[in-house]
């Protein structure tokens, strides 16, 4: 066979750009659109996450309405509406019609969405499966009108393709009452009760006890979660990177782009937790001329600087960039969801750091009530207030739970398994950067620093649970003590007399009174009392 050799020139004609939309269109499973069941949930989840983020940033107590309708159990129309600030008309095509566009990616701050992928991928999935345009309603205030934009996503250009624009009159039944955003899309999906939208919203309510959520499911049932607290959480601040978490390539870029003229200023301005003392110490240790402009650093100097940064002891990152649910709000939220629970406890860990990113772990345990006694406990995993619904076995929470010894806290556990008993365990991680194990954000990567904090928090909750259960136990025993003594003592004396063949009348009542009154009734084991028995039940 003659081989027709192709040249480098020929290949050059074949190569071209791939748009990020095309990439994710072909790889939609990477964004969580693996199958119709999951896809339905993902669209709801991305829209609700965006709504909660928008309300929280605008300091508005969120009021979210979710409706899912279907005629044929194949195509589902999803509508998610919030009372947030709305979106200015020009931004709508970008936010909903462009993958990798958003406000959170370049900041370090705690938020639900991060990568600017979620809601536009819903638009993409919708048009891919049903061909329909998505509808975005937005009103930015009561003085403006509701805009309605119908749009698709042009995957080759990674741009929105607006198919229709309307301004709704105040009387229109689709007009928004106040400021807010409503997202509507049609997707091919499948609805199921468990591990689906219902459970996701239930857990979202626990993670966001300040939100009001109204939900109408495809089968027509309504599920409403009212607010458990009436205050928004403290607004998390944006932070700068911490010196301990930066890589050489990033540092070089920062040096090149900084406006600071001196290296000491550079360190103080571009990083968090660096004051003049530590900045100067870094410069000193690096042995680089302190007058050298950051722009003139070459690779080797950058590397020296990086090593110096890691040698100097620098404070932890600031904590105001994190906003945990909080002990009170978390417990109130759980009480609402489990009104019959016998015992609820939560624990919030002090902030910790992994790879320069600050994070806080919160955990809670709900015990008793209507919870099934025999099953494995239920686990609710949250990251930046967002429920994680899939890959339960892979994440950090699973590792933390299965490597904790639950027996001592009163739950059943066989080997290193998920404990069982009438309990729910909640594990929440909030951070400026949550390390997910995939883009579809299904589980938190089990970094040792994170697993350790989760375990410490769980152990604290566990100790409280154990104490509660032991106290319950003890109270029951206490009442039986005196009873036993009064029951057996006269009988003991009676039989002993018979054994000794002594007929004298002996009144033991005074002795009994005496022992009880003096508090001499004991309840303790004696060393050596446990007699060794190799077998039992001989004939």
């Amino acid at each position: 066979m003659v081989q027709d050799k192709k040249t480098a020139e020929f290949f050059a004609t074949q190569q071209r750009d791939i748009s990020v939309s095309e990439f994710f269109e072909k790889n939609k499973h990477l964004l969580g659109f693996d199958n119709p069941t999951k896809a339905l949930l993902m669209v709801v989840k991305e829209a609700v996450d965006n709504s909660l983020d928008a309300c929280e940033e605008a300091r508005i107590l969120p009021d979210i309405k979710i409706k899912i309708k279907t005629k044929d159990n194949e195509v589902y129309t999803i509508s998610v509406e919030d009372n947030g600030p709305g979106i200015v008309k020009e931004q709508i095509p970008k936010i909903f019609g462009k993958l990798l566009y958003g406000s959170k990616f370049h900041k370090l701050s705690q938020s639900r969405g991060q990568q600017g992928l979620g809601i536009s991928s819903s638009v993409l999935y919708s048009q891919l499966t049903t061909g329909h345009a998505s509808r975005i309603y937005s009103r930015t205030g009561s003085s403006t009108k509701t805009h309605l934009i119908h749009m698709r996503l042009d995957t080759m250009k990674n741009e929105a393709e607006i198919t229709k624009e309307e301004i709704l009159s105040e009387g229109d039944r689709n007009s928004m009452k106040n400021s807010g955003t409503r997202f509507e899309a049609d997707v091919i999906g499948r609805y199921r009760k468990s591990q689906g939208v219902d459970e996701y919203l239930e857990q979202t309510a626990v993670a966001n006890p300040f939100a009001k959520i109204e939900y109408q499911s495809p089968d027509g049932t309504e599920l409403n979660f009212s607010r458990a607290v009436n205050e928004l959480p403290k607004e998390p601040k944006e932070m700068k990177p911490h010196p301990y978490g930066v890589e050489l390539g990033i540092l070089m870029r920062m040096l090149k782009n900084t406006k600071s003229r001196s290296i000491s200023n550079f360190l103080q301005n571009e990083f968090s937790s660096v004051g003049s003392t530590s900045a100067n110490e870094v410069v000193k240790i690096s042995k680089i001329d302190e007058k050298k402009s950051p722009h003139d650093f070459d690779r080797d100097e950058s590397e020296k600087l990086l090593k110096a940064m890691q040698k100097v002891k620098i404070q932890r990152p600031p904590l105001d960039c994190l906003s945990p649910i909080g002990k009170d709000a978390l417990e109130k939220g759980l009480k609402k969801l489990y009104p019959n629970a016998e015992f609820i406890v939560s624990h919030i860990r002090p902030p910790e750091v992994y790879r320069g990113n600050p994070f806080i772990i919160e955990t809670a345990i709900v015990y008793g009530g209507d919870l099934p006694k025999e099953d494995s406990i239920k686990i609710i995993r949250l990251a930046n207030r967002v429920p994680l619904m899939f890959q339960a076995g892979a994440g950090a929470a699973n590792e933390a739970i299965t490597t904790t010894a639950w027996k001592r806290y009163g739950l059943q556990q066989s080997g290193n398994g998920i404990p069982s008993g009438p309990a729910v365990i909640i594990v929440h991680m909030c951070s400026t950067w949550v390390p997910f194990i995939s883009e579809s954000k299904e589980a938190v990567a089990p970094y040792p620093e994170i697993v350790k904090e989760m375990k410490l928090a769980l152990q604290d909750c566990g100790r409280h649970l154990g104490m509660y259960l032991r106290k319950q136990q003890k109270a029951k025993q206490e009442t039986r003590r005196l009873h036993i003594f009064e029951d057996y003592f006269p009988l003991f004396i009676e039989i002993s007399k018979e054994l000794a063949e002594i007929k004298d009348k002996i009144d033991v009542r005074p002795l009994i009174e005496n022992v009880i009154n003096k508090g001499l009734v004991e309840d303790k084991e004696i060393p050596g009392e446990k007699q060794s028995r190799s077998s039992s039940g001989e004939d």
Partner: protein
Amino acid sequence: MNIGKDVVKEIKQNKVPHMNIPIRSTSNIVYDEKNLCYILGNREFSRSAGNIRHIKKMTQLVKVADFSKQLVKEGTRHVTKRELYYISESWGEKLKFDEQPESDEIVEDIEAMISEPREAINIIPNPKGSIYGDIAMRFKNPKGKMMTVNCLDTADGQQIGPRMTEAEFAKTSANIIIAIETTGMYNRLIEENAHEKFNALLINLGGQASRSTRRIIKRLNEELKLPVYIFCDADPFGLHIATVIISGSAKSAHVNKHLCTPRAQWIGVTATDIIEYKLRSDKLRDLDIKRIKELQVDPRYEKDKRLQQELKVWLKIGRKAEQQAILRYGFEFVVDKYLPAKLKELKAPGIR
């Protein structure tokens, strides 16, 4: 039994009564050089009637003591531990035992307190085993009548039951006792007339010897001065059967000296026999090896050179055999060659 009297004494002194019970756990078991067996040490623990964890057990203990005192008085009835457990139901809710281990423990507490085996208070183990050979036994039948039976006049030997265990030895022509682990070999020796050839009483242990059988072996040895030879499988379990007859078990340290026959001797089958007679054999299990290693450091056998030598051989060959494996040489070999050689080596009386 002063258990009852001690209680009443303390009550009369207006004290909260207590009981001292010898500790039976391993930490209180010591080797008795005089009796050549494990016995309990001096440590005791004290139960107080003022401790609610003790009062019920103490009440049950005096009840069991009183119950067996009645049995002994009456003289014809015996109960097993299981029967005791069921009978306790007739004592009412407060005294009945919820689980048999509870009543068993109390029986053992009493044995330890009175330093006598429970047979002495008519609480008997399940009988097992039988005797064949020329010995006349005098026993009391269930109606209290004294009778005599010769163990040679029965078809397959006399069952060792509660009455046999307590029987008087009226008359015997036997010189020695051979105790045999398996029923199969026992029957073989009867059919090969071993009792005549060796002038022996043959005792069928039926596996691990029951307490009744150990007791009767001890009595035959002490009262009639008959030397005892134990013939077992060639494995650590067989050896264990022999050592329990000789020195008792740790579990029954509190009554060992009433049950064990320190001068009894182990015939085999030995590890060396496995090699010498090329016996059909199986691999030793891990458990067997562990047991052999324990026996190597057991104070009771440290000075027994023959036994120590055999243990070494065992570990070396790593195999075990059943006593019936000797049948590879046919029926008569065991009485014509094997046993004569063994008994001669052990200097049994009347063997050339």
